[in-house]
């Protein structure tokens, strides 16, 4: 049996009182050993910040294990669930406190799976935020190897003093590579 999918619709302007929640951006407590900041901006085609976007992340733990534990909505600060959600602020910035994911397959390039929603964006967008890694590791990744060389950097985070920076450009010359996972 194959059922036709329910189409998406924009998250609209008014999700702010419903979807974000206290602790959504805090996958681990700040200050926990290994805690880092994963942050960046969401930008539109004019390079202007998108102040009404919602960003979700989903990632493995530092050992590359996929966690299947509840508790993302009401965190106990001890259970790492691997999932987080936050909205952009008035300057289009978002920020998570998390840990760096390990590779789910030994030797693979680790990444954080990212979902983006916004007013004006009619359906959610999926992408990956790869950790910086030696070129040999990045080059061996099937997705990164298949992306045009001049766009590959849009999928790779950069390091700053607190952790990882990942800007999301919905449109424009440096448009982020967004993913389609539908079977061929």
């Amino acid at each position, binding site marked *: 049996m194959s059922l036709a999918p329910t*189409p998406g619709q924009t998250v609209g302007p008014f*999700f702010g009182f419903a979807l974000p929640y206290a602790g959504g951006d805090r996958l681990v407590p700040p200050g926990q050993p290994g805690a880092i900041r994963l942050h960046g901006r969401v930008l539109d085609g004019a390079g202007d910040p998108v102040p009404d976007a919602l960003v979700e992340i989903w990632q493995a733990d530092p050992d590359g294990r996929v966690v299947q534990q509840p508790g993302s909505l009401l965190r106990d600060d001890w259970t790492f669930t691997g999932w987080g959600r936050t909205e952009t602020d008035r300057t289009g910035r978002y920020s998570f406190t998390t840990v760096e994911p390990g590779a789910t397959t030994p030797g693979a390039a680790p990444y954080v*799976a990212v979902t983006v929603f916004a007013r004006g964006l009619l359906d959610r967008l999926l992408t990956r935020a790869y950790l910086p890694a030696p070129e040999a590791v990045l080059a061996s990744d099937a997705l990164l190897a298949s992306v045009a060389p001049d766009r590959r950097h849009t999928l790779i985070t950069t390091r700053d003093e607190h952790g990882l920076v990942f800007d999301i450009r919905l449109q424009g010359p440096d448009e982020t590579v967004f993913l389609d996972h539908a079977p061929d």
Partner: protein
Amino acid sequence: MAAVTPSSPPVASSDAAASTQEEISAEIDQLSREYAASGRVEERVRLDYPPYRSSVLRHPTKDPHHADPEGIELWAPVFGQRDVDPLEADLTIQHRGEPIGERLVVTGRVLDGEGRPVRHQLVEVWQANAGGRYIHKRDQHPAPIDPSFTGVGRCLTDADGWYRFTTIKPGPYPWKNHRNAWRPAHIHFSVFGREFTQRLVTQMYFPGDPLFALDPIYQAITDQAARDRLVATYDHGVTTHEWSTGYRWDIVLTGSHRTPFEEESA
């Protein structure tokens, strides 16, 4: 707190209410004719749909890059009883008073593309009140706020994929896409599947809404059959005696990539 404001205001094409409904409707009709002539079937909403003005600078211009999901993408976050109180499924009991409006139950199943139920997974809803007003500081529509209604609910699907919310019927509301623009009444839904790639945020509509033809968000799904999948069905079997009306709406996520074997061994 010294918040930095964006250096430039939103583009004039968005929120300026510059166009008339006639101009927006003409654009919708043109895109609809082009779609009919194309012979294609589009199951999904378009990201590039200029009649929805705020999409102009917020849609990717490049085709999405095909990627086989792997690792973390083959799994979804788990939500449990710790996360969701069963009372959150009733939006009419969150305050001391009864909210104003038509009390209704909306229920249905969350299924994957193969028709398998999505079990014990999170469903979130949010909506305007009966007068078309959101509890959100950006909603300046001068309709009354209902002190007995917030308009936010959550639940987990059961072992057969069923969700069920008790709420009131939201009103249509004006917005600034163009002059005299009104959204059809809708409930926003946020749904998770068993895999990250099945994530869905959408809107559920009510049958026969006269605003369907005029609404560029609904019309951004160019295929009528696909649009129809967002419209709930009135179901007298869900309606209860002297209590509430009932609607049925099933949600189908994209097909899953994990095989049943992986499912069992998980």
